[in-house]
């Protein structure tokens, strides 16, 4: 029944982009069975929590051809649906909390205790367990303990979170720009250009690109300052995460381009940029937002993976990945050094994934069926 009130944006073109569109793998004239996009790389669009749709046979009543105009009410409806999804609300809350914590947390800790992420207490380089004072009694001073050099873990986890979240957001933004430009160009221009651009995407999918990123960071990163390395990381991860975004945007643009209302706009002489910005961009926004939300955790995971290997964020900066790398060296004796950054990161990714899932369900009830 849900399809009565909502516009039906994804048509066949959009559907074939879905990895779970198992029923109808598109047959492409190019000769390759067009497999669903390489979901795992992004870790994103696999997340589907389809709800039961009643749409069996006759129960569907009229209004199936609702106009694909996403007015403000659509966004309001989506927001309402999002708030109904408890897991998504939980995710939103946790992500919000962690974002605020990593932004203002370090300053608060400094004001309260004087610890910063790189403050090494003189003379004492023992790693304390959580809530433990030097004499072994209970203490609020280091709620997450200290690391091998005696630095406050809480301050380090928060500081690491800044970098990790920043990498997630900025790299996703980079991938967004490349992916949207690429996909929109291919979809809008169509024909041979579309063929060429998407063929390149197909080809890039099949490359073990993480190995190249490793080489890039190991060789080019070595001569950069730690800050420069972080920027290289943004660029590198953004540059390898845009493929699926390009496919999604292209699918959206193609299906929207052929919608009656866009054809009508064109027929009445509306200019191309106006069509793109007034009609296509707002309507393609939903899936892009959803996918971007799901790209953030996957990029964060990749950053952590690289930092864990010692190739990403370097001292004096820290990220959750590099903290975990430090922690694993002392896992047997000081497990909290790994557990706190690891669990914080897992919780953040968990919440972001739930939020992304919830956003998809809310913004695109069509997709819930799949």
């Amino acid at each position, binding site marked *: *029944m*849900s399809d009565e009130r909502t516009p039906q944006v994804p048509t066949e073109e959009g559907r074939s982009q879905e990895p779970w569109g198992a*029923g109808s793998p598109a047959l492409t004239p190019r000769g390759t069975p067009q497999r669903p996009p390489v979901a795992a790389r992004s870790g994103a669009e696999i997340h589907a929590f389809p709800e039961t749709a009643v749409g*069996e*046979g*006759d129960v*569907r*009543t*009229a*209004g199936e051809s609702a106009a694909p105009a996403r007015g403000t009410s659509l966004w309001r409806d989506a927001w309402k649906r999002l708030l109904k999804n408890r897991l998504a609300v939980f995710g939103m809350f946790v992500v919000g909390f962690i974002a605020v914590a990593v932004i203002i947390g370090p300053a608060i800790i400094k004001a309260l205790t004087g610890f910063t992420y790189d403050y090494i207490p003189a003379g004492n380089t023992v790693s304390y367990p959580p809530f433990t004072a030097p004499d072994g009694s209970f203490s609020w001073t280091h709620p997450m303990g200290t690391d091998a050099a005696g630095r406050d873990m809480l301050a380090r986890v928060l500081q690491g979170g800044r970098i990790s979240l920043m990498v997630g957001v900025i790299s996703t933004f980079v991938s967004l720009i490349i992916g949207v430009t690429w996909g929109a160009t291919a979809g809008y221009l169509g024909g041979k250009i579309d063929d060429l651009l998407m063929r390149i995407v197909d080809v890039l999918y099949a490359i073990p690109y993480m190995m190249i990123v490793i080489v890039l960071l190991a060789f080019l990163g070595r001569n950069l300052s730690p800050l420069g390395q972080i920027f290289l990381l943004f660029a590198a991860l953004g540059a390898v995460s845009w493929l699926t975004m390009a496919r999604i945007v292209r699918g959206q643009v193609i299906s929207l381009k052929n919608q009656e209302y866009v054809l009508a706009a064109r027929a009445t002489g509306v200019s191309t940029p106006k069509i793109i910005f007034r009609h296509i961009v707002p309507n393609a926004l939903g899936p892009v937002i959803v996918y971007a939300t799901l790209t953030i955790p996957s990029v964060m995971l990749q950053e952590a993976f690289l930092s864990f290997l010692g190739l990403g964020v370097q001292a004096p900066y820290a990220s959750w990945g590099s903290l975990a790398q430090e922690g694993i060296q002392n896992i047997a004796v000081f497990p909290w050094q790994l557990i706190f950054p690891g669990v914080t990161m897992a919780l953040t990714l968990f919440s972001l994934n739930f939020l992304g899932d919830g956003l998809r369900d809310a913004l695109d009830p069509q997709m819930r069926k799949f």
Partner: protein
Amino acid sequence: MSSQNGTLLSIKDLRTYFETEDGTVRAVDGISFDLKRGETLGIVGESGSGKSVTNLSVIRLIPSPPGKIVSGEVLFHGQDILSLPDDEVRKIRGKRISMIFQDPMTSLNPFMRISRQLMEITQLHLGHTREQAYEHAVKMLETVGIPDARSRVDAYPHEFSGGMRQRVMIAMALSCEPELLIADEPTTALDVTIQAQILELIKNLKRETGTSVILITHDLGVVAGMTDDIIVMYAGKVFEQAPTRELFERPGNPYTKGLLKSVPDPAHEEGTELYQIPGLPPDVAHLPPEQCPFAERCYRAEEICKKEFPPFVQLNEEHFSLCHFAEEVYDESRGGAQTAGSHIDPNGLPLQGGGGR
């Protein structure tokens, strides 16, 4: 009327509801009818009127959740299907009652050869060996008029056209010589020329095997000439029930009249506007129970229609209509002046297929 040797299927006050975000959808809300052995019953109605749900309820194939058969009886040979254990129902499905669905393009398993899909059903119900089942599959394909059946039986569904696939579906449905065949909009998804062929096929097979048939359609043109009786459904209710000829010649319900009028008349002069029932089918989830569901769209509606649920009026021995003004409408139809559906020959095949959706 054909032979009258007893009732095969008797549905009593069937109610099937769906729970949705918007509330309870009463897809089928108190349907009753009988089907006699060897007869063909047409169920006509717009999309959403509950005709498919009625028939899925008969073999308990309502997706649950969200659907639920709330009450009623489905007596098949006097035995209530709704109270049978699951494995007993399964012995009926496909063997004694079988179904043909609307969309032949999606109703066959795309990953399985036609032969296997046909063999499966006779191996299950008739205990055929592989060889027997295979031969039977070939025979069934020949029966439904697939040329060169033996060489095509091992093809996959996508190698068949829509009409051919529907023939395969019919072959599958008739494999075990069922007592009842339910055809749910069997021609809606097909081209007009193919529609006529498929209807002709069902008609012939029915005559040869003596199977009872329930033919569900939204297209009055389809049921003309196919059925003995017709039920008109609207908003989960039976609006009118009558022998086919009587219904076409003398409808006793404003809704039926509207349906008949909206069937295009080939003799209709060009430029004349085709009749359309005003408004849209109702939102079954938010229908006030105390009013006539058709009141908003009815040309004959009066105050009482919005206040009281209409009675199911018996107009003659076999003719019933759900309307406050059933008798008046019935009498009015006798004059013939307004019988808009008169261009449909109730005995013949449809001149107009309706062209699907």
